[in-house]
């Protein structure tokens, strides 16, 4: 029975499976895609799914399947980068805010509260928009929008860990604060942070593709899923099947992360 407790539940295992398949798809995109994502074929525009074009073609005759497969590279890597950077930044500020005293503590707490006060998607939109539509500016905007959330979570986890007996014992033994943080406090945060990271990365994928849908982020012809949906929306009356694949790709990626997050929370 004890071994069973450590095995991931069916939901979590399915989540990891889908997530790994998506990561492999992104890595092996050139091997899997039947064509290149940018190759246009003006004789075959807005075609329904067929043997040659399994998911049909878009308004420029590009193979939608190939664009979805290559799109995994953009959306997944962009969202993962933004998510990890905000975790790192929020983690550092959160730990500092928990352990600081006096004026620095007030200052750090206020910075986190101000960050939380601006709705994330709007901050990301403004930053990414002002810096111009590139992948880097979109990632920067998402990091700016998401680090306060992480800072609040990790400040809370640090504060509660600081009261635990083994940390108090460490303090009594005269261990330095930095070592207490790296060797005593951070390791026992692993489980809640993993669960939160999976759920949060899913939200970041939604924000990333949503802002791309609005016209930010990697510029066309890059095969970004959100941007593909925006283009498909324009041709919805003539080629309604085009709105299916990119939406399903995003949903699959986020649902996988939801399952991982939920499963990690339970265990």
């Amino acid at each position, binding site marked *: 029975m004890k071994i069973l407790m450590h095995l991931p539940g069916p*939901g979590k295992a399915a989540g990891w499976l889908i997530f790994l398949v998506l990561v492999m798809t992104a890595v092996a995109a050139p091997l899997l895609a039947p064509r290149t994502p940018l190759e246009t074929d003006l004789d075959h525009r807005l075609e329904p799914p067929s043997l040659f074009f399994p998911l049909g073609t878009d308004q420029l005759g590009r193979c939608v399947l190939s664009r979805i497969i290559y799109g995994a590279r953009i959306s997944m890597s962009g969202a993962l980068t933004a998510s990890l950077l905000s975790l790192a930044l929020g983690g550092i500020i959160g730990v500092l805010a928990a352990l600081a005293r006096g004026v620095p503590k007030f200052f750090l707490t*206020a*910075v986190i*509260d*101000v960050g939380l*006060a*601006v*709705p*994330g*998607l*709007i*901050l990301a*939109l*403004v*930053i990414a*928009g*002002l*810096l*111009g539509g590139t992948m880097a500016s979109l990632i920067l905007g998402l990091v700016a929008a998401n680090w306060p959330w992480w800072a609040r979570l990790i400040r809370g986890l640090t504060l509660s860990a600081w009261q635990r007996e083994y940390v108090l014992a460490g303090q009594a033994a005269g261990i330095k604060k930095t070592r207490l943080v790296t060797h005593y406090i951070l390791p026992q945060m692993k489980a809640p942070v993993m669960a939160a990271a999976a759920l949060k990365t*899913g939200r970041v994928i*939604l924000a990333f*593709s*949503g802002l791309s*849908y*609005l*016209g930010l982020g990697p510029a066309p012809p890059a095969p970004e899923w*959100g941007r593909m*949906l*925006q283009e*498909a*929306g324009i041709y*919805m*009356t003539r080629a*309604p099947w085009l*709105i299916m694949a*990119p*939406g399903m790709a*995003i*949903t*699959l*990626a*986020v*649902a996988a*992360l*939801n*399952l991982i997050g*939920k499963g990690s929370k339970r265990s």
Partner: protein
Amino acid sequence: MMPVVTRKLLYLTFVLWSISLGTFALFSLAPGDAAQIILNNQNETPARNQILALREELGLDAPWNVQYFSWLKKILKGDFGQSWQTGRPVVDEIFARFPATLELAGTAFAMVLVLSVLSGTLSAVFRNRFVDRLIQAATVVLTAMPTFWVGLLLIYLLSLQCRLFPIAGRGTLAHLVLPSATLALGLAFFQGNVLRAILLRIMSMDHIRFAFAKGLGKKKILVRHILPAALPPMVTMWGICMGQLLGGAVIVESVFAWPGIGRLTVEAVMGRDLPTAQALVLLISFLFVMVNTLADFAQLRLDPQMGTPQ
């Protein structure tokens, strides 16, 4: 020791002031010269002396602290400058668009409330049974669907195929259905899931187990004891939900061509209309902070334990 309310209000003022400073800094650091953008928008090829004159007029050469305080003084008087796109006062632009967003977010919020209380309560009452599993599975999928895709699917199915609702725009009640449903769907199930967890925690508490042991009816325990106990934490969640609705409105309003402040934000950012975008960030953040503070105060009233200083 100050009372909690005074302390909170003082801190609120400080946070609001910090937001104004942060917004000012963000837009001052934005690349591009304001004078040049304004003159370019007027369809001129501006001469160098024109740009220099406008820079002088806008006070762009003054030190940042002078610029900040003159800007702050203006916005405290309600003057957010003129839109670089239309030339009209930013305040007018925003207030022309605000009712549309209020209507959309308000309807969506009502939908979220009803759906989340329904799904969360059902899930908790029938824990680990079929209904719960079904709602849980729906939650995983529905919270994973991007709102703009939900919007496109609804437009295709209900507007283009069934011709039940108009495709886009604002006007009749029928116009309101699809955008608000799109905005509400994912959030409702997310909130329902949070409510489920809260209810399950309450159900395992001693006073509820005592009520069962005493032989009270299940319905009575649910309505009289369990649901009221879930109210304080849910009030906080509803405050957060308002922020998510405002963020979500940015995308949903763009999908449905809904003339609200979400779409105005996108237009302002895309058109590099900095005064409008700046005013919107400030306004939306203020609104969000106010709603959350109200939720905090409501919680203070609902849960007396919250008011005691630690």
